[in-house]
């Protein structure tokens, strides 16, 4: 059984008991415990079920590499799935539970999958779901959806807050082990600004647990004095519980700081995402131990040897009373010795190597521990807990020599440097055959903006498993980093570390060497995704030679741990199956983040109203208080209509249209883009920007203009007013102001930079209010201040003046076909002017109207709307707008594009009006017209589509516009628009101008 030892545990405070809840049970631990160590102290080795076969699984590791012990923690708004028990610190009242089982962890129905495992080989999904096609939807998908996934997604809104930090430093040191501390100290003492981050709660890495001495003293003393020296340096920042999550181009690095996770619900942000620019990144991220591949290596109680040692040293927890150690390297002996020194029983150390001449094996033998060389574990016996192992020869096929009773197995297959941060941005690796590891190739680092390497791997992460070499390397990395960012570090020798001399390890990828298929099919590589040695072999047999393909086919390394434990072992098995060398098979790509980070931290403050701030016109609040029914228009909000009392939206729109046509309407048009184009070459420039001739526009006059992309496609439209000889004001669509301003600037800055033109986007400087309808003039005359008569201010002109005491510029332009003034006033006067209009208009029946009324009225007049009649593939000629395309101009943007054969094809669909045969039937938006003929593939031939469609209360008739094949030549013809319900709506092709073609209503 696993239990708390009488003494020991450097990270826990035995005076502070913590009560927490796990799977509904109340359990106790100590301050400083992780969920994993506390559960082990309560003899809870079984911590989860595997993803595919639902096999019982225990904790394997003691750090972020843990694949099995994933928990749901917290409740409701603080619930979070898939938290590693090994990195989750317990706090008073923590609620947690295990995952991926039903009905309970102890008894899980899904475990039947393990009995069926021979029917779920590698590539099972690919093979099974090929056919028949109906089976996916009706059989497989429902089952998979029910059983897939690890934790459950949260159902409540996250109650915590998160924040970003931005930092610019010379040197980031990722990892606070002895190499990282030394690197930070060396670089810091040289004067560089340093940010040191350590993912764990404390500094020092493995040095303390592994009994390293530095300068003749225990590592702990050196770590303490080094931390004190670092704290004295004002240019050094240090953070624990902060992980370097990812390295990106040009020295960009994400740091993930967990501020309150260890305290439970607290005030202030829970996590902080640091967005860092570093000139140099020193990655001192240590190494991760590899499992060994023997049958039953996933049974709860089989753990990494280093983790077994950590639980003893860090948490005072024994994982078992009788622990067999199996190792292919000397480091594993440290665990045996630690167990022995803790008073626990080690029945045997099983080592596949022949000569055991290192200091550690000698010490173990001297302590009286039985050591078996050239040996292997045949298989582990047990179900929910290890019961025994069988001893066999490593060279053989696994014949049992002896059965050894035990309740835990500590395994060590050697160590893999954590090269993730080195590799994220393209750093390359070399295979070191002697130590069986990929280590950073210093000649091929990830390159920064200046073409030099910006990541420096150091210590164990650089392949130095020996403490003395690691510390020396850390010092060298600090020197290099400081020098490369422009400092001159003093010449000083690295402190001298010492640990036991270790003999060479022996790469062992299969245990025993000739393990049978039966054994291999119980030998797990990837615990979380249940990938076995037999699966990788099968993939190789089926022709998957690329490691990237094998990964996807078998799902090896694709779980939430991203193969931290399994990748090298899987790679070795693949290489062996292909009879190739490991470096020739290569590694899969390391992608950030190193370890999962929360979505909350990525979002930071960008949620709710800050997610995408909205733009508000000066009248926004009034509209909100007066029945405005909001709709988003680009980043703006505009009222779709103004609802009165219990009126429906449809009724409101109808009322607004009829009132505007009969009396007077008031529209907030402030969202329209207003770009000033000024300079001696402004006219010449606008002649290029617009399809029309703008340079001939008279001062005081307005002209409707079209803008096209260089491809010829219609991009925006609006009215241009000439304010003076050198100044134009260009109106754009509401959604287009920023885009069109940028478009103008692009051409001015990158093509015609010698033209004397200046642009300014003044959209928000003005409130623009349209007074529309037969009574519009009366309203303005009542306000008084300037002559707005037909003679003084004819159609398509504007004037600067004053209305009701407010500086105003009325434009006589109309998007409704009515007598209409669009009046620009300073934004700060917008609401005042609006109020005046409402007051003055009372006797003339004035009512505000929204965007839908605007849309219907413009459609009644056959005016196009960018985004309705256009979709990025439509040219002005398609819309019958040839009158707005200058034939005199030598050139304009889009002219050449519109001359291409496809654009001049007479079969392009053209704009027409569509009048439904049944006046009450409105054609659905986006409906297509068909002519009854079929294509080879059994689909209808389409001959047109609807672009705008409404019921017109003015005409008491359904109206639409659409693009139709040869449309303008087919006036009077009736075409069919099939609808989704199966009904076909018939519509007659007609002129798109449904109302007042002569313009009698507006030209008054």
């Amino acid at each position, binding site marked *: 059984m696993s239990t708390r030892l009488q003494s020991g545990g450097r990270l826990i405070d035995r005076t502070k008991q913590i009560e927490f809840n796990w799977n509904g049970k109340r359990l106790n631990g100590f301050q400083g415990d992780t969920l994993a160590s506390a559960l082990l102290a309560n003899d809870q080795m079984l911590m989860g079920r595997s993803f595919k076969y639902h096999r019982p699984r225990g904790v394997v590791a003691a750090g972020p590499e843990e694949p099995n012990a994933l928990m749901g923690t917290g409740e409701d708004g603080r619930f979070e799935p898939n938290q590693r028990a090994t990195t989750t610190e317990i706090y008073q009242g923590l609620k947690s539970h295990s995952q991926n089982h039903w009905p309970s962890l102890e008894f899980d129905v899904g475990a039947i999958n393990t009995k069926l495992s021979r029917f779920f080989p590698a590539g099972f999904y690919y093979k099974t779901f090929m056919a028949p096609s109906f089976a996916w939807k009706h059989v497989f998908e429902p089952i998979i959806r029910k059983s897939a996934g690890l934790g459950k997604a949260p159902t409540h809104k996250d109650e915590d807050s998160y924040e970003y930090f931005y930092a610019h430093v010379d040197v980031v040191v990722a990892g606070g082990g002895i190499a990282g501390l030394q690197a930070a100290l060396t670089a810091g003492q040289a004067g560089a600004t340093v940010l040191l981050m350590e993912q764990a709660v404390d500094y020092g890495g493995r040095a303390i647990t592994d009994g390293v001495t530095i300068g003749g003293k225990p590592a702990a003393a050196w770590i303490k004095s080094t931390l004190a020296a670092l704290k004295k340096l004002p240019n050094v920042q240090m953070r624990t519980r902060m992980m370097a999550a990812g390295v990106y181009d040009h020295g960009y690095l994400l740091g993930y700081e967990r501020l309150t996770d260890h305290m439970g619900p607290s005030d202030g942000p829970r996590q902080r995402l640091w967005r860092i620019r570093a000139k140099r990144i020193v990655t001192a991220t240590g190494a991760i131990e590899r499992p060994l591949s023997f049958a039953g290596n996933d049974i709860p109680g089989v753990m990494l040897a280093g983790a077994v040692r950590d639980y003893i040293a860090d948490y005072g927890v024994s994982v078992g009373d009788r622990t067999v150690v199996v190792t292919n390297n000397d480091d594993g002996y440290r665990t045996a010795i630690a167990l022995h020194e803790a008073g626990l029983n080690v029945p045997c150390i099983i080592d596949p190597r022949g000569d055991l001449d290192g200091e550690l094996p000698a010490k173990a033998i001297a302590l009286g521990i039985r050591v078996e060389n050239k040996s292997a574990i045949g298989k582990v016996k047990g179900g929910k807990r290890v019961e025994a192992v069988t001893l066999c020869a490593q060279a053989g096929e696994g014949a049992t020599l002896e059965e050894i009773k035990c309740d835990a197995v500590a395994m060590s297959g050697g160590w893999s440097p954590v090269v993730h941060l080195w590799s994220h941005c393209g750093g390359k690796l070399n295979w070191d055959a002697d130590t069986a590891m990929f280590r950073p190739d210093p000649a091929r680092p990830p390159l920064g903006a200046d073409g030099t390497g910006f990541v420096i791997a150091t210590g164990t992460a650089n392949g130095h498993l020996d403490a003395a070499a690691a510390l020396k390397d850390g010092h060298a990395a600090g020197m290099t980093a400081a020098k490369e960012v422009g400092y001159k570090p003093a010449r000083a020798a690295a402190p001298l570390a010492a640990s036991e001399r270790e003999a060479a390890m022996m790469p062992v990828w299969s245990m025993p060497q000739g393990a049978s298929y039966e054994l291999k099919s119980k030998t797990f590589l990837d615990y979380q995704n249940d990938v076995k040695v037999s699966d990788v072999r099968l993939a190789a047999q089926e022709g998957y030679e690329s490691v990237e393909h094998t990964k996807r086919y078998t799902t090896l390394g694709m779980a939430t741990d991203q193969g931290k434990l399994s990748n090298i072992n899987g790679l070795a098995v693949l290489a062996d199956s292909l009879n190739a060398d490991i470096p020739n098979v290569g590694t899969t790509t390391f992608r950030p983040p190193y370890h999962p980070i929360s979505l909350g931290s990525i979002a930071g403050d960008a949620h709710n109203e800050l997610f995408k701030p909205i733009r508000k016109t000066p009248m926004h609040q009034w509209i909100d208080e007066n029945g405005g029914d909001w709709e988003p228009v680009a980043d703006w909000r505009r009222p779709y209509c103004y609802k009165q009392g219990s009126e429906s939206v449809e009724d409101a729109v109808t009322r607004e249209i009829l009132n505007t046509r009969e009396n007077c309407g008031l529209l907030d048009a402030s969202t329209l883009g207003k770009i000033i184009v000024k300079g001696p070459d402004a006219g010449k420039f606008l002649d290029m920007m617009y399809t029309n001739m703008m340079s001939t526009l008279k001062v005081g006059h307005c002209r409707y203009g079209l803008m096209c992309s260089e491809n010829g496609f219609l991009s925006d439209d609006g009215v241009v007013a000439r304010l003076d000889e050198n100044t134009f004001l260009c109106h754009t669509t509401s959604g287009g102001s920023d885009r069109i301003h940028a478009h103008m600037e*692009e051409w001015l*800055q990158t093509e015609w930079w010698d033209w004397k033109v200046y642009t300014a986007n003044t959209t928000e400087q003005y409130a623009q209010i349209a007074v529309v309808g037969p009574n519009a003039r009366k309203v303005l005359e009542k306000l008084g201040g300037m002559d707005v008569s037909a003679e003084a201010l004819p159609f398509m002109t504007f004037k600067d003046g004053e209305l009701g005491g407010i500086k105003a510029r009325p434009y006589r332009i109309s998007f409704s076909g009515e007598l209409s003034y669009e009046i620009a006033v300073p934004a700060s006067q917008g609401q005042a002017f609006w109020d005046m209009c409402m007051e003055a208009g009372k006797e003339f029946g004035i009512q505000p109207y929204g965007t839908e009324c605007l849309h219907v009225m413009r459609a009644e007049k056959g005016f196009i709307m960018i985004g309705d009649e256009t979709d990025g593939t439509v040219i002005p000629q398609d819309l019958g707008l040839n009158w707005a395309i200058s034939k005199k101009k030598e050139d304009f943007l889009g002219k050449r594009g519109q001359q291409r054969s496809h654009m001049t094809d007479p079969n392009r669909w053209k704009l027409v009006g569509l009048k439904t045969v049944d006046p009450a039937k409105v054609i659905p938006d986006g409906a297509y017209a068909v002519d009854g003929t079929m294509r080879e593939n059994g689909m209808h031939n389409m001959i047109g589509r609807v672009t705008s469609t409404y019921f017109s209360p003015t005409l008491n008739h359904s109206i639409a516009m659409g693009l139709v094949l040869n449309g303008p030549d087919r006036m009077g013809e009736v075409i069919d628009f099939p609808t989704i319900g199966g009904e076909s709506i018939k519509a007659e092709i007609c002129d798109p101008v449904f109302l007042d073609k002569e313009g009698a209503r507006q030209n008054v």
Partner: protein
Amino acid sequence: MLLLNCPCCGIDADETELEAGGEAHITRHGAGASDDDFETYMFMRKNPKGVHFERWRHAYGCGKWFHAARCTMTLEVFGTYSAQTLEPPKALINKIKKKRPDWEGFVK
């Protein structure tokens, strides 16, 4: 995430402040151009593995366009310069040649 120095305002700008504008030094062929010239102008891009001259806009900064010479493989930035030019500055070309002896040179 790239870091480019905006030659207009002098700031080292994060990629999130910038908008990419594709290949630089494209010659505009407008009205009257042959089909081939127009096609080249509109659609043909070099897309090299290596030295590339490209357009960027400091969209969330000073708003100005500038040009950058960058290696598309290693992301090394050789330099940034004004967009108001028909070809890269000589000094920059020499600098790139020095760093990349095999480079074919600037071809318009």
